[in-house]
């Protein structure tokens, strides 16, 4: 995938059926406590919107930002850079306040972070 590739329609299962989304929820639960599936009802719809925007399901996004090398899971630097840029571009298109844009972008960043992909975004507010 590159930035110039047209977005494709994608069939998505319910997000919680993806391993990477369950990993994300487990990470949120472990770190912050509470029930991440219900405490913020916007979280999953926002993430689904990103998946549809880039034409990738959640597990594919993780595959494109990580790889297995010599039996170890590693971060794909180019993949991470590409997604960092895609997230920024996408959150810029969100209507509303800067806080709202940040929330949309950070939702996707949170998904990657809890799947082991370190990603910093700078101050968003």
């Amino acid at each position, binding site marked *: 995938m590159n930035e110039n590739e047209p977005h494709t329609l994608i069939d998505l299962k319910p997000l919680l059926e993806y391993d990477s989304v369950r990993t994300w929820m487990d990470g*949120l639960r472990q*770190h*912050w*406590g509470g029930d991440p599936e219900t405490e913020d009802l916007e979280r999953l719809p926002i993430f689904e919107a990103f998946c549809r925007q880039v034409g990738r399901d959640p597990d594919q996004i993780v595959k494109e930002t990580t790889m297995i090398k010599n039996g170890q899971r590693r971060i794909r630097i180019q993949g*991470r*850079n590409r997604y*960092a840029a895609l997230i920024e571009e996408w959150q810029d298109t969100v209507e509303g306040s*800067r*806080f709202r844009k*940040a*929330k949309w972008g*950070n*939702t996707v*960043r*949170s998904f990657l*972070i809890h799947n082991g992909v*370190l*990603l*910093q*975004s*700078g*101050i*968003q*507010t």
Partner: protein
Amino acid sequence: MEFKEVIGRRRSIRFFDPDRPVEREKIQKMLEAARLASCAVNAQWARAVVAFRKDLTDDQFSRLKTPVAALNVDLAPVHIHWFNDLSVVKKIKGSRLKELVDVGALAPTHGWSHKFVDEFVYPQILEPMTEGPGYPIASTFDVGGAMTQALLTGVDEGLGVCLVTLNGAVLKEVFNVPEEWIPLSTILVGYPAESWDGGGQRPRPPFEELYHEGAYGTPFRRDAAVTEELKVAKMIQEPAKPHDPKRIAEIRRLAEQYGLPM
């Protein structure tokens, strides 16, 4: 602040107040402390480039804001980038050792003389050392000591500090440093936006696991009276607790304040 408390209060601060500038004189004090650090053969390998974030050009700033460092460089008002100048030993050729002889730091009582430096130390030890694979590692050890003194001085000045590693190749280009300088770590400096204790002293392995007495395998005996004394002196402080609700609440607040992912 008393010395032991400075050690006890130091934390790797990761949430800085980005809008509160750091006084230039405090940065100078950190650098002065680094310059006075112990250093093998008095070579002084440590070099630093101080970057005040407000003075960075847009191009410099955007190149430093990589996906792994964007928040670090955004939040900290000052970045001190440290390098190891590997060329220094061949440039000074033992002259700083002879300075030490002249001021009485190295004396004939311990076998030192100008002649020893000129005929043995430089040509037979130092110069060959610079060709060996261990040279960058050994010299970097001393730069680390200098950086530590700078870190602690920052704490003593009421600042938050954090040692991080940025992209060395980018640093060399952005700050146009000489080819022979090896990029090391960066000290981020600013006033903490988080509580100064950052949730408590960080976890450390047990004392007895790290230190031995007489020979390997015999742990150095840790005297409880000494640790109590160090608690009173605030060097040993309350340890951070896993999943501490107070700390989690603080990070949540900071994440909301700066718009950070959770």
